[in-house]
């Protein structure tokens, strides 16, 4: 099946309660996703605390395009294409660092650039006199990514020249970032503790769909979290739980817990679980953290901030955050069956160090490539990626709790075990993949 220049065929891959297996398997669909969905929406690059000083940079890939996030001379965070204007070489190769002399210098022929991307020097420039270099795109310096938004430290880009605005795209889903930032008594987050990178042999959308999938933890994670529960079961009543146990146990809460937790759906594919409570609700209090929060925000506001314990918020398509534990994961699609997931963790400025330790423990236990919980998810994604090669049924079910109400709009609260979040993601997918066919 060919999809390029066939918007109706692309639209037909998504039904209101099911999706065609080609969305996970087709190289052509994947390429179109990178060209359309991932270019025309707002994609997470990094956090501004990763580049605190002028000249600091962090490099990554957005929709397979190499980019550099840096702090310029004026203190602003910029995102540039990681590509020399001369012959296209990648300017920086390290994941992060500091530009020597506050300049970017190509390792091949030595063209140098200021931090805003403008050309500073070209060796033996006289060799270009009388040539058309000056009128060519090669003389305009490093391409700046056209649209960059730094929302409370979270840096997003939209690669396309024209398209949906940042606030319009995310709407009120930004309140999840607000909550995470406000958990710091100083209202500031800092990336801390290293990054865990976990390669998955599966399509990026399987990871995204898992984030608000509440019907799997009690099954897929029974072996790990269920074992933790059994080991703890014979401890005397009232024994204080080690942090690890506190973090494992909620994963094997029953169906009614996850159902009553609730899921909230926004436009454009964003959502979060944990409307009413979540797996983070019952962690023990830490030291004088609450006192510090009350001092900064007043008792009532502090209580409201800490009472919001959303689990995974999905910022479709690239980012998910867990504000209550200050951990995020970023999806970097590589191929239809290959996705890199990065787990980043944050320190809450002004909070006791135990909170970071708790965060680091959580990512180690739940999200690391070595995590006994993460292993189960990865196995299931790979199982789907391989299973979908089998013919006889082209469709993947997204039916759970579908109602006709969804025909008029998806936004709102639903029971936690509904698959409405996945249906919302594919509605956004259709919108950006086949805009020509708006219903």
């Amino acid at each position, binding site marked *: 099946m060919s999809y390029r220049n066939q918007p109706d065929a692309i639209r037909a891959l998504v039904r209101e309660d099911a999706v065609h297996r080609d969305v996970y398997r087709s190289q052509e669909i994947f390429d179109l996703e990178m060209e359309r969905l991932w270019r025309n929406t707002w994609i997470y690059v990094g956090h501004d605390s990763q580049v605190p000083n002028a000249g600091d940079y962090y490099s990554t890939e957005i929709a397979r395009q190499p980019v550099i996030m840096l702090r310029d001379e004026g203190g602003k965070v910029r995102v540039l294409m990681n590509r020399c204007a001369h012959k296209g070489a990648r300017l920086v190769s390290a994941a992060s660092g500091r530009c020597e002399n506050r300049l970017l210098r190509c390792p091949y022929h030595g063209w140098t650039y200021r931090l805003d991307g403008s050309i500073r020097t070209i060796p033996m420039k006289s060799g270009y006199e009388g040539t058309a270099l000056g009128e060519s795109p090669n003389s305009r310096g490093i391409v700046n990514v056209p649209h960059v938004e730094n929302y409370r430290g979270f840096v997003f880009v939209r690669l396309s020249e024209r398209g949906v605005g940042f606030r319009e795209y995310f709407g009120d889903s930004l309140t999840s970032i607000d909550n995470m930032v406000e958990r710091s008594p100083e209202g500031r987050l800092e990336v801390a503790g290293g990054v865990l990178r976990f390669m998955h042999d599966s399509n990026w959308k399987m990871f995204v769909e898992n984030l608000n999938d509440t019907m799997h933890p009690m099954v897929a994670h029974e072996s790990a979290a269920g074992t933790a529960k059994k080991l703890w079961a014979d401890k005397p009543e009232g024994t204080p739980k080690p942090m690890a146990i506190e973090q494992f146990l909620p994963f094997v809460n029953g169906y009614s817990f996850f159902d009553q937790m609730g899921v909230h759906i926004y436009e454009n594919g964003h959502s979060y679980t944990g409307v009413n409570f979540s797996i983070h609700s019952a962690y023990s209090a830490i030291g004088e953290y609450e006192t510090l929060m009350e001092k900064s925000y007043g008792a009532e506001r502090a209580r409201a901030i800490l009472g919001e314990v959303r689990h995974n918020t999905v910022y479709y398509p690239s980012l998910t955050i867990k504000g209550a534990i200050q951990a995020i994961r970023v999806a970097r699609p590589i191929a239809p069956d290959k996705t890199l997931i990065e787990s980043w*963790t944050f320190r809450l400025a002004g909070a006791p160090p135990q909170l970071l330790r708790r965060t680091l*423990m959580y990512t180690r236990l739940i999200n690391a490539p070595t995590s006994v919980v993460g292993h189960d998810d990865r196995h299931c994604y790979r199982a789907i990626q391989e299973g979908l090669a089998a013919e006889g049924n082209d469709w993947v079910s997204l039916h759970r709790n579908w109602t006709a109400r969804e025909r008029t709009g998806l936004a709102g609260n639903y029971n936690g075990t509904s698959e409405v979040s996945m249906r919302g993601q594919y509605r956004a997918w259709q919108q950006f993949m086949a805009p020509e066919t708006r219903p």
Partner: protein
Amino acid sequence: MSAAPDLATLTQFVYDEARLIDEKRFEEWYELFTDDGYYWMPLTRGQPDGENHTSLLYEDKLLLRVRIDRLKNPH
């Protein structure tokens, strides 16, 4: 107090430990650890410790018990 083990003994111990894991003899491997022991696989070279910087593995005996026992689950 006994003398510290020599390099040959320590080297052999590491080989033996690896063999236990390769052969999935996890109970015997678990018994190698003291109660306050940790199995630590750092994430980056030179990281200060396993608590204030993330690691691939930083597990006390309780977590090692979870890691081993989960394999007994039929699923």
